[in-house]
């Protein structure tokens, strides 16, 4: 309850004198652990006990230096909760939560079979541990797996645990009992399987245990399952006997005379309730109902969100959560107007799930490694929407910003890379665009799409209406150059084959490096060829 713990620090480098059970030391209840347990209890709709107490559970084992574990045997922190788990048919089943109790974690013990010695890592000893006990409401290995996954995403969402089973942040003891179909449900004898540390193992262990118990019960009418504690062999996927009920140790529970009674004020509970992070099911409903996102988008966002950072002591994870990132985009973060501007949730979802996540995936990065802030992506989306850049350029920018992380705003990056779209006199004056850029530079185009080397057709470019570098706008001159390069096409077009002009449009598009809008190019080219209009 006293020292910081990470599964990845070297053994015995982070040990408080209390956790090492040095004589003369006294425990101290970590108020953050209590707050996180209250948070969890609220999320699981439990009755929080205004008064709970701590007890000592005694046993002699090398992972327990003091000879006892401080836990809440007689009066747990919370009771009577519910967790709804999803069924394959889309319905939800309530699973009753019996209680939530706070405990001390034990040290980590690893056995070296070669030297026949045990190694004890005290780093974990004394860390706050929250035990969530469910009632016997789960009816299959699949339901147990759904329960663990739902609980895991809940714990992550509220920040009370990273739920990481490989690191041991979430560990599971499973009780399995079966009964004959003609007997009362729950009338079987339970066997407890200790320390299962993945959903896969949980499912496998339950499956094997059901198999073992049914063989036993069907072998003869008198056969009975013996109550016992069992382990799980990760190699054979079978459970094995650890000890029988008769061998069960007497833990000699005793009220802890140091920590004694924990009293919670209603005020403390209320403050935590008011600051409770959004729960996964509330989040799903909100994304679906308020933002009207497609089921696919919602699932993608929630899946990524569940992998977000869980900060120490449940601190606000900020933008590391995909949903929070999405919310900030919709709210208008990075918008040029001071008050912020709402963005279309569907457009945002499209940019996030397809472009950003797509690029991350192709670069083999997770959302946690995303280096583009919500403000940057927001501005980028605005620029595309306002046609300061084209959609193609937007995608290109995302790729560029992921490979070259920067705090620069996208308009500056676009400007530095000469990626701002050609303006058109028909579109609104660019000065109304968020960050009206003034560019007076030449770009090189190439007639070959695959050859980026400079060509001989220098084209002055400017997106500014007030630009004085050129009398004609750069898109028009680009089109003029292309038309000049394909006289036979122009001739064919003039004969009435309008479709051949696509060849010229394609050349312009290639040479514009994505800065031009295809529809607009077509208009300009047609205008120049047929002389019907001036752009």
């Amino acid at each position, binding site marked *: 309850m006293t020292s910081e713990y990470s599964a990845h620090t070297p053994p015995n480098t982070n040990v408080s*004198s209390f956790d*090492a*059970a*040095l*004589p*003369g*030391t*006294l*425990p*101290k*209840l970590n108020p953050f652990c209590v707050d996180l347990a209250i948070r969890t209890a609220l999320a699981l709709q439990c009755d929080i006990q205004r*008064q709970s107490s701590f007890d*000592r559970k*005694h046993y*002699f*084992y*090398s992972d327990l*230096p*003091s*000879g*006892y574990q401080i836990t809440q045997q007689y009066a747990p922190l919370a009771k009577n909760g519910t967790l709804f788990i999803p069924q394959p048919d889309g319905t939800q089943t309530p699973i009753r939560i019996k209680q939530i109790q706070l405990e001390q974690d034990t040290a980590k013990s690893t056995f070296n079979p070669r030297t026949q010695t045990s190694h004890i890592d005290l780093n974990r000893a004394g860390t706050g541990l929250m035990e969530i006990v469910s009632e016997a409401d789960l009816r299959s290995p699949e339901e147990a797996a759904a329960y663990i996954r739902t609980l895991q995403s809940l714990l992550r969402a509220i920040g009370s645990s990273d739920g990481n089973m490989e690191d041991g942040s979430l560990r599971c003891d499973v009780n399995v009992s079966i009964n004959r179909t003609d007997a009362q449900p729950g009338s079987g004898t339970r066997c407890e399987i200790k320390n299962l540390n993945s959903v896969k193992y949980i499912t496998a262990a339950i499956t094997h245990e059901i198999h073992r118990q049914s063989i036993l019960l069907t072998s003869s009418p008198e056969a009975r399952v013996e109550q016992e504690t069992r382990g799980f062999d990760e190699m054979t996927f079978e459970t094995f006997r650890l000890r029988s009920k008769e061998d069960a140790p*007497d833990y*000699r*529970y*005793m*009220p802890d*005379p*140091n*920590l*004694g009674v924990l*009293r919670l*004020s209603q005020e403390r509970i209320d403050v935590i309730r008011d600051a409770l992070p959004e729960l996964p099911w509330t989040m799903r409903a909100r994304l679906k109902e308020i933002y009207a996102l497609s089921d696919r988008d919602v699932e993608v966002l929630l899946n990524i969100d569940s992998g977000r950072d869980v900060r120490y002591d449940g601190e606000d994870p900020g933008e590391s959560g995909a949903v929070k990132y999405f919310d900030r985009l919709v709210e208008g973060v990075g918008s040029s107007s001071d008050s912020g501007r709402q963005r279309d949730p569907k457009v945002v979802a499209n940019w996030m799930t397809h472009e950003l996540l797509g690029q991350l995936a192709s670069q083999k990065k997770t959302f946690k490694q995303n280096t583009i802030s919500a403000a940057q992506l927001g501005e980028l989306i605005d620029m595309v929407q306002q046609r300061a850049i084209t959609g193609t350029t937007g995608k290109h920018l995302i790729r560029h910003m992921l490979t070259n992380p920067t705090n620069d705003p996208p308009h500056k990056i676009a400007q530095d890379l000469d990626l701002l779209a050609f303006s058109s006199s028909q579109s609104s004056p660019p000065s109304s665009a968020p960050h009206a850029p003034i560019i007076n530079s030449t770009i090189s185009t190439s007639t070959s799409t695959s050859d980026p080397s400079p060509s001989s057709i220098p084209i002055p470019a400017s997106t500014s209406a007030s630009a004085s570098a050129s009398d004609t706008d750069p898109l028009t001159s680009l089109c003029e150059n292309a038309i000049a390069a394909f006289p036979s096409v122009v001739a064919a077009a003039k004969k009435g084959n309008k479709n051949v002009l696509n060849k010229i449009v394609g050349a312009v598009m290639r040479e514009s490096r994505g800065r031009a809008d295809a529809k607009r190019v077509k208009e300009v080219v047609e205008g120049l060829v047929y002389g019907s209009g001036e752009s």
Partner: protein
Amino acid sequence: MGSCLVSRRLVTSRRSLTTTADQWRQIIHERNPGINAFVHITPPAKVPSGHGPLAGTTVAVKDNIATVDSDTTCSSKMLDGFQPPFDATAVKLLREAGADIVGKTNCDEFGMGSLNAYSYHGPTVNPYQDSSDKLERRWPGGSSGGSAAAVAAGMCQVALGTDTGGSIRLPASYCGVVGLKPSYGLISRWGVVAYADSLDCVGVLASKVGDVRRTFGILSTYDLRDPTSATPEARSRSSKVVKKRLSRWDAERDATKPLRGLRVGIPQEYFPSELSPAVIKPVRNVIKSLQEQGASVVPISLPSTSYALSSYYVLASAEASSNLARYDGIQYGSHARPPPGSDVSKTSRNYAISRTKYFGPEVQKRILLGTYALTADAFDNYFLQAQRVRQLVKNDFNKIFSLPNFYFTDPLVASEQSRSPSSSSSSSAAPTQVDILIHPSAIRTAPKMQPTTATSEHKSEATDTDSYVQDVLTVPASLAGLPALSVPAPKRFLDREGDGWPIGVSVVGQWGSDELVMRVGEVVEQLGA
């Protein structure tokens, strides 16, 4: 004998401090071999602290209180050579106040015992010498026997002890010194090797009440590292009512009747049949003198007292069995290698080898008793029952004291308190209520050491039961967490037909009224002047 730092404050120049520090150690080296009060003598600090309210004051520390510069063995072979990586909060406060920690004192193993017989450092001898000059070896009492003997022999000015069920007051009584077990939670237990957390108190022994008060004043402070440390709020609330009570006393007293207005309770249950006449007489004389000085003496009853002793032994042993579970011989302390062929298939079997070898007999006895009291079958009848009795004992005290108990400051408990009559903060106490209690500290004077039974192994069952009965006088205040001070009865009050050895008078008050208890203790002390 001894020295009073109130009457002769030590010079504070560095050189003289060094000299004095060396002189004190000289005295210890001369006197300790025959007494065995010190188990470790700390060399003087190279740069003695020349300032602070306790500058130059020599303090001995019981060997179950952690000191960073010397072993802390609790007189147990189990912790032979164990040097803690930290100072106990009490030791730290003493050092900061400029005190000179002269050494560690002998005690019963882990504080379990009432003679100072159960120590792997060997027994401590009571240094008290009466005028008749007959050489007689007596026990100093336990478990803080080394601390009491060190003060009594003039080897230090002040000693820290711990008191779980009388471990300061009993040796203070046997050795003829002053010993204070403060209110539970006032002095931090951080760094005090736990015997029974809910009862353990750090306390102070000295020749005079004034020295105890000055030291207690330094040590009584809130400590975040002790979860049972009384909160600043509890401290200020109780000191407010105590101050109010003291100023009312000051207003009512006059030169001829200095104790006018003080209500002194005499609990009838504290005068059991085992009490020797040599004890009753001086205590009666003290009470009579207090009455002559204007105090109202009120006979009172604490009906749950008779159950207190068994409650204490169940609770203390249960907590001890839990607290001593950590001594497995692996991480620190003594380790016994399993002999070849021994069954170490279970971790506990391995531990048992070291625990059997290095725990003394009394410790093993209490661990076994406590372990049994906590087993599933016995828990309700023993542990829970003992807890209920403990509550009855507390209720008894809260009923008879005029001041309220402020140890718990939770609104929940405070509202429970307001329902009990003790919380009435009326200026005139109910006729049955008293300010303090007075009773003998011990049922007898210091027992003789039998030359052949100096080692614990030879002690008979009968002696054990005797020492348990002794605890009847000291244990209730421990169960209720109350301040209790043992002051030697003035020599002129001693029974002429008695053995001439000291008798302690206990002054007990409501939680937090330590100052009131010490004021009355000073009055008793001055009766001899």
